[in-house]
C-alpha cells in the first residue's frame, strides 16, 4: 500500500503542477497570442527558445538551472538581491524549473488554436466597438477554449511526470521537493519494488485517465492537439 510518505509526494507533486500550470497559462497566453499574430523577425527565435525543452535532455536544463540559481549565477544573484536567498532545493525553485520545462506544452496548443481564429471575427468585434482586450475575452477565449483545455492538461500532466530537472535542483527534501517521480526512482534503487509498483501504478492510472478524457471527451480541432 501507499505509505504516508508516498502520499505526501503525490500531494506535493500535484501542488507543484497546479501552481506551475497557472503560471504557464498566465505567461503562455499573451506569448502564444503574440506568436500567432506577429510578423516580427523575432518570431522564429522566440518559437525556437520556447520549443527547446522538447529537445534538450531535462538533465541539461536542470544542470543549467542549478548553476544559474546558485549564489554566483544570474538568477541566484537576482533572488539574493530581492532578499529571498537562492531558489535551489526550494519549492519555488521546482516551480520555476517546471514552468521552463513544460512551457512548450502550453504555448504550442494555444498558439495553434489562436492561429485558426480568423481576422474577420476580430474585425467584426471591432466594428461593434469592442476594444482589443474586450474582443480577446469575448471572442478569442471562447473560440480557443479547446486550446486552453489542452494546454492546461498537457502542462499539468507533463509537470507531474517531470524527473530530470527535479533530480538536479531538488535535493529530495520531504514535503518541499520530494516529488513522486523521484520517490519512485528511490524506491527502485533501494530495491523496494513493491512500494515502487504501488506508486508507479497510481501515476500510470492517473495519466491514462487524464489523457483518455482529453482525447475522447473534448471536441477540438486536430490543430489544437499537436501531440495527437
Amino acid at each position, binding site marked *: 500500500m501507499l505509505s504516508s510518505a508516498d502520499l505526501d509526494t503525490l500531494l506535493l507533486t500535484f501542488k507543484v503542477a497546479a501552481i506551475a500550470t497557472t503560471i504557464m497559462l498566465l505567461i503562455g497566453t499573451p506569448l502564444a497570442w503574440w506568436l500567432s499574430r506577429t510578423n516580427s523577425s523575432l518570431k522564429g527565435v522566440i518559437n525556437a527558445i520556447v520549443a527547446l525543452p522538447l529537445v534538450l535532455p531535462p538533465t541539461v536544463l536542470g544542470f543549467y538551472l*542549478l548553476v544559474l540559481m546558485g549564489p554566483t549565477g544570474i538568477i541566484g544573484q537576482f533572488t539574493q538581491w530581492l532578499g529571498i536567498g537562492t531558489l535551489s532545493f526550494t519549492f519555488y525553485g521546482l516551480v520555476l524549473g517546471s514552468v521552463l520545462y513544460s512551457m512548450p506544452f502550453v504555448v504550442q496548443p494555444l498558439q495553434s488554436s489562436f492561429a485558426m481564429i480568423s481576422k474577420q471575427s476580430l474585425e467584426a468585434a471591432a466594428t461593434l466597438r469592442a476594444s482589443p482586450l474586450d474582443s480577446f475575452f469575448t471572442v478569442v477565449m471562447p473560440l480557443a477554449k479547446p486550446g486552453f483545455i489542452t494546454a492546461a492538461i498537457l502542462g499539468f500532466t507533463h509537470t507531474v511526470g517531470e524527473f530530470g530537472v527535479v533530480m538536479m535542483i531538488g535535493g529530495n527534501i520531504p514535503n518541499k521537493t520530494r516529488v513522486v517521480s523521484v520517490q519512485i526512482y528511490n524506491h527502485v534503487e533501494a530495491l523496494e519494488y513493491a512500494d515502487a509498483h504501488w506508486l508507479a501504478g497510481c501515476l500510470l492510472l492517473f495519466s491514462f485517465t487524464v489523457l483518455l478524457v482529453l482525447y475522447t471527451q473534448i471536441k477540438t480541432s486536430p490543430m489544437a492537439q499537436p501531440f495527437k
Partner: protein
Amino acid sequence: MFKNVLIRFCLFFLLLMCQSTFAATTLVAVAANFSKPMSEIAAGFEKATGHSANLSFGSTGKFVSQIENGGPFEILLAADEKSPEKLIKDGYAVSGSQFIYAMGKLVLWSATAGYVDEKGEILSSGNFKHLALADPKLAPYGAAAIEVLNDLKLQDKLQPLIVQSENIAQAYQFISTGNAELGFVALSQVFENGKIINGSAWIVPAQLHAPIKQAAVLLNNGIENPAATELLVYLKSAPALEVIKKYGYYLAQ
C-alpha cells in the same frame, strides 16, 4: 608498387584481426565515488594487458537493480560490502570472487577556501543554509555521513538543513556549484596527490563512522570474458593500489 601497397594493407588488416581475437572488452559498473581512480586504473589496465574496460558510473543501488534485471555488466565495483554479497546470494554474481578493493574516507567539504575548519566545528555552529549528502538509503557515503551526525549529536539540529542527492557525484555537484555551502562527499572526489584540490575540507576521523568497505565482484555475465577476470586481478596489482592510495583511500590490508 600497387601490389606492395595491397600487401601492406592486407598485413595491416591481419594485424587488426589478431588484436581483436586476443583483446577483449569488459563492461564495468563503478560506484560514483571511485570514478576518478578507476578511469586511471582502466587506462593502466589497457596498457598492461591490451584488454579494455568500458566504465559506467552511478550509485551502487541503481547498479544492483539493473544487474538483477538483466543489466549487461560483467564486474561491479560497489561502494559497500553488502551489495556484492546480496548479488551472490541472489545468484547474479560469482561466489568467492568478491574482495575489498578500497576503504573509503568521508570528508566534509566546501568549495569556498577557509569555510570548513580543520576540526569540522562549523557543523556544530549550524551557520549555513544547506548541508548536502548522498541519500543514506542508497549510498554508503550518505549512511556514513548520517552516522557522523549522530555521533556528534547534531542529527536533530541539522536535519532541516540536509539536502539529499541520488549519489555522491551529485552531492559534489550541489556543493561545487555553491548551491549547498558544504556537504559530505568521498575524499577521492576532492583529493589528489596528498592534498585537497580546492575549497576547504575536514577529513572525518575514521572512528566516527563504520568503515566504508568497498567490495568488487565478478558478475555471471563476465565469467567467460578474460578481460573481466584479468581486470579483477589487475585491481590487486601494485600499480592499481598505488592509484587507489593516491586518491585518498585506505587499502584493505
